């Protein structure tokens, strides 16, 4: 029994068929709990007033924007090394979710930035890094849609994802060198040095879990769709030959 068993599409479909409803229900429950708790049952911040509550959308979306790329990097590596089709399809399925998360983070950040910093957009290192991440996602998705042959597309996008990861990371440090920022440091850290108040932390963690589960549900759903689409095109090709 190992994780590689589920590289078999049939087994993957059978497993996700059972897992997907559970994940969906859990993610809806966590998101509802976290967001309602966060929006209505937390105190206003003494400086930022009620605008602080957008943090329950902003931080989870931003976290997922980065984690989705990392997930794509891992699945790309698995495809290049072990040639499991499910892995390549999962990377393809994850990219549009990642780009949506990046957009949510950028937009909620802009809405939050207007009352706090007096501007929707500033060329702050963190903001700029997210814009760069957005462009990397766009290139990756565009390459997937440009190539007809699916295996070629999987290979080329995987290589692009590897090289892109290196340069996205490099851009992050380059941007830090280039400009000092307005954005605060990380709101959540494990070593408790600088962190947010407990009243916000628990609902924020619930929201983080909700976003993670939501991503899991969406990526499983989209991967299942990709596998079915692949089967249909295989069937059509077989009909044509017959």
């Amino acid at each position: 029994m190992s994780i590689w068993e589920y590289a078999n599409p049939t087994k993957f479909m059978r497993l996700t068929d059972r897992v997907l409803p559970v994940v969906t229900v859990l993610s809806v429950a966590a998101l509802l709990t976290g967001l309602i708790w966060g929006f209505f049952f937390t105190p206003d911040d003494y400086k930022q007033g009620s605008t602080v509550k957008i943090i329950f959308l902003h931080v989870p979306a931003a976290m997922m924007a980065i984690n989705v790329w990392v997930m794509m990097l891992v699945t790309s590596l698995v495809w290049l090394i072990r040639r499991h089709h499910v892995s390549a399809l999962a990377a393809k399925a994850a990219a549009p979710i990642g780009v949506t998360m990046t957009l949510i983070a950028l937009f909620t950040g802009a809405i939050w930035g207007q009352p706090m910093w007096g501007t929707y957009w500033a060329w702050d290192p963190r903001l700029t890094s997210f814009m760069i991440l957005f462009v990397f996602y766009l290139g990756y998705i565009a390459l997937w849609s440009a190539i007809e042959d699916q295996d070629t597309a999987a290979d080329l996008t995987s290589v692009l994802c590897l090289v892109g990861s290196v340069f996205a990371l490099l851009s992050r440090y380059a941007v830090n060198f280039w400009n000092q920022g307005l954005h605060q440091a990380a709101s959540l850290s494990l070593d408790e040095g600088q962190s947010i108040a407990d009243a916000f932390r628990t609902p924020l963690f619930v929201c983080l879990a909700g976003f993670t589960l939501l991503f899991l549900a969406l990526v499983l759903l989209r991967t299942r769709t990709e596998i079915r689409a692949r089967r249909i095109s295989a069937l059509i090709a077989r009909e044509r030959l017959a």
Partner: protein
Amino acid sequence: MIAMLRRDLALAFRSGGGFGLSLAFFLIVVMFVPFGVGPDSGVLARIAPGILWIGALLASLLSLDRIFQLDFEDGTLDLLAVSPLPLEGVVAMKALSHWLTTGLPLTLIAPLLGFLLNLPEGAYGWLFVSLLAGSPAFSFLGAFGAAITVGLKRGGLLLSLLVLPLYIPTLIFGSQITTLAVDGLDNATALAATVAISLFTFALVPFAAALALRVNLR
């Protein structure tokens, strides 16, 4: 490998088109800036290093699709792939010849165009050094993008979408070299970082590009 390099250089010089065009494009971009922002020499002096960097970057982008496209179409690339020369070496030589015919002339002409934009005194040398340090990265990353899009019918626009994000770190560090020098600040970090990126792409990008080429030749 040397023969390969000489062949590519000869093709680039004699077939016309690619070589002079990127220089002309660079000149036109630089000429357009005063039209766009106004002829005020103070403003131009402030933005000159950045404009020259972006202009050189865009000009070297123009000829990227020629790196592999012609050889791919007439089958030369298939022969090179089965030749005893490793494909990584082929990629490295092709990127090098692209740099010699595009990046190097752009670097040489950039200080001249600096006059047009009223580049501050003392920035000319740094502009030259920074482009010399950074432009090889453009050619090598561009060769990677060209290798990925070589099999596509209309890959040109996609090629720029893939390659331009990869140029961001080089552009940031490279244009900072001159900007910091103009402001009288220490630019050693930026220079070291730019050289590091160029050497890094020189060492590792040929492997990724050769991998992409093998996929496309399959």
